[in-house]
């Protein structure tokens, strides 16, 4: 649904994007993660047609950015990280204004307004002035605005930033609903734990390049370094000696029969080590890979410079 190739963008002397490649499959909820200044917002703004790239190509639903700007606007719904509202409009009028700006008028616009307000749970606030809404409500209203023309692709830049935990949960539920409706969602966020719960695919960006992408499960299990916890029955000196001498191992801590270490390589390496431990007669009671969170994976990749390949 979204295909980006060698995308480049420079602001003065700062190169925000250095040849970004990205593929977002249709119907995916694609979590776009990276540090501040990594190029997430720039990418989203280019995909929304708000910025012109200096090089490379980007396609959304088969429409090349820059060549089909009007068709692109019909396909894409965009929600920026920071946005304002017109304080002199009521909630319903706000949506009708954007509906008219998308060429939707008459009874269809009224129906869309009511349906969307129901979806984002703001039906009761229809007659309230927009500036009287809380931050969370304004975020939801902005999401409804992005959906007013029924886009196939949603570009959401930090939709949960500045929200309290309850509002975040509400936002997440709405996004799940939208995912069920078949929308392709590209969502950038710093709150990685929430993305892990929501996303089907993940892309990691650092310094203007996408360094990892793929289905979430694949990404979490396919990291080159894994953390393993080993427990033995009785003293673990022999086990620790063997593990510490094993190639690609970095012992993190060893305490009362439990050794926590990092092992470079995939599950084959781990199986080899376990086999050797058993052959040497180490009474292994527990040998398991620590469940990797998205946060761990990202931090690990960032630390190891694995984000460079």
């Amino acid at each position, binding site marked *: 649904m979204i295909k980006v190739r060698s995308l480049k963008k420079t602001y003065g002397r700062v190169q925000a994007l250095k040849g970004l490649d990205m593929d977002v499959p249709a119907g995916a909820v694609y979590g776009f993660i990276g540090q501040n200044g990594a190029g997430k917002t720039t990418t989203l*703004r280019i995909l*929304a*047609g*708000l*910025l*012109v790239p*200096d*090089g490379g190509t980007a396609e959304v639903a088969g429409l090349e950015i*820059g060549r089909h700007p*009007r068709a692109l*606007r*019909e396909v*894409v719904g*965009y929600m*920026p990280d*920071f*946005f*304002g*509202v*017109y304080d*002199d*409009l009521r909630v319903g*009028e706000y949506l009708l*204004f*954007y509906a*008219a*700006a*998308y*060429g939707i008028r008459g009874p269809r616009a009224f129906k869309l307004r009511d349906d969307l307000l129901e979806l984002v749970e703001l039906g009761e606030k229809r007659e309230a002035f927009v500036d009287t809404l809380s931050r969370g409500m304004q975020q939801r209203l*902005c999401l409804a*605005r992005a959906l007013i*023309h029924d886009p196939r692709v949603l570009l959401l830049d930090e939709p949960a930033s500045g929200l309290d935990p309850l509002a975040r949960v509400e936002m997440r539920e709405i996004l799940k609903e939208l995912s069920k409706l078949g929308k392709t969602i590209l969502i950038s966020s710093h709150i990685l734990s929430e993305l892990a719960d929501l996303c089907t695919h993940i892309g990691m960006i650092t310094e203007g390049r996408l360094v990892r992408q793929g289905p979430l499960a694949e990404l979490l299990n396919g990291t080159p370094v894994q953390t393993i916890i080993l427990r033995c029955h009785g003293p673990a000196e022999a086990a620790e000696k063997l593990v510490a001498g094993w190639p690609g191992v970095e012992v993190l801590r060893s305490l009362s029969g439990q050794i926590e270490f990092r092992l470079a390589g995939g599950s084959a390496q781990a199986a080899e080590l376990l086999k050797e431990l058993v052959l040497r007669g180490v009474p292994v009671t527990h040998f398991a890979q620590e469940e990797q969170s998205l946060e761990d994976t990202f931090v690990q990749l960032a630390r190891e410079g694995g984000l460079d390949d």
Partner: protein
Amino acid sequence: MTEEVREEQKGQEQEKEAAGQRKEGGAKQRPQEKRFFLRDCWEGLRCGLAPMLGKEMRGRTRGWRSPVLLSVYLGVLGTFVLLFLWLNLERLSMIRPQVGLSLYSLFIFSLIMLISFIAPAVAAGAISGERERRTYDLLLVTKASIPGIVLGKWLASVVYLMFLAVAALPVFAVVFLYGGVPPAILGLAFVVCLAAGLGYGAMGLALSALTQRSQAAMIISLVLVFFFIFGIPVITGIIMASNPPGPSPQPLGQPGAAIAGPPWYVFLSPLTAFTSVLPGTGEYDRNWGIPLISELMNMLLNRMVQPEMVAYAYKMGYTTGYVFPGYPGGVAAKPAGLAAWAPWARFTLYQGILIPVCLAAAILAVAPRKPWPFHRAGKK
């Protein structure tokens, strides 16, 4: 010939065929694309203009602010009229024939000044305000085209001012109690007001798009408007005083006699348009108002007072010593071309040029993709 070369040639032929097909297809699709282009342009304009105007008007006329503002505005104007009438009728215990004309002059001067300064000040926040409020990106991702957004913003910023001008019409009607002002002249005065509001509004909008901050746009636009209104006539006056025109080839009143007209740029100032819509600025009392402006207007434009107005004033017996000389040399020396245009028409023409220039500048400033090639070259 090797296999590789053959394959390469085959590939090239296939590419040529495909290119030919694309070309044919392109030629066939061209009229359709053109139709779509026009349809898209119209749709983009409609999506920008109508919602923007609706939103602005709704916002401005909402709540207690609008009726209070309108009441205060009309109340001040009404009080001013009553005070003026009281001073003229009660204090002098007689009706001076020029009361209507003087009142009308004051009204029109105030109205044009008001509109000339408020229109750019309001428009100066139109686009930069959207940027500051962070609603700008949300507009650009809609189907509204950039010309549609800019036009919508421009009209929205001046339409309320025009509403205020129209609301003041009943107050203006007081001048008809005394006569002396033909309705056509009053209509011309409103045309000048409209031209000033739309032109300076467009200028404010262009500055709003070009500068990032509303405050900067407002200050620059007000300085520019001040320069247009007062600076240009003053500079013209100084230039003309220091470089007086050469003697007429024939004595005045003789065929072939001519007086050099004011330079073209002086008509950029709405003050010059006053000579069309006012019964001679400063004619009745040269010490009234701003002497410099009155003197300057008389000096620059004493030959270009609307003949219709003067004839009417003569007919009504209002002219007091100001003799309109007519064209020296008779019809033969009548100015031709643009110089023959009445001041209000020349001012309106210049404003008509200023508007598209400013709107185009605003559109180019707002558009993410600039059309000029060096922008793209620079990007590469």
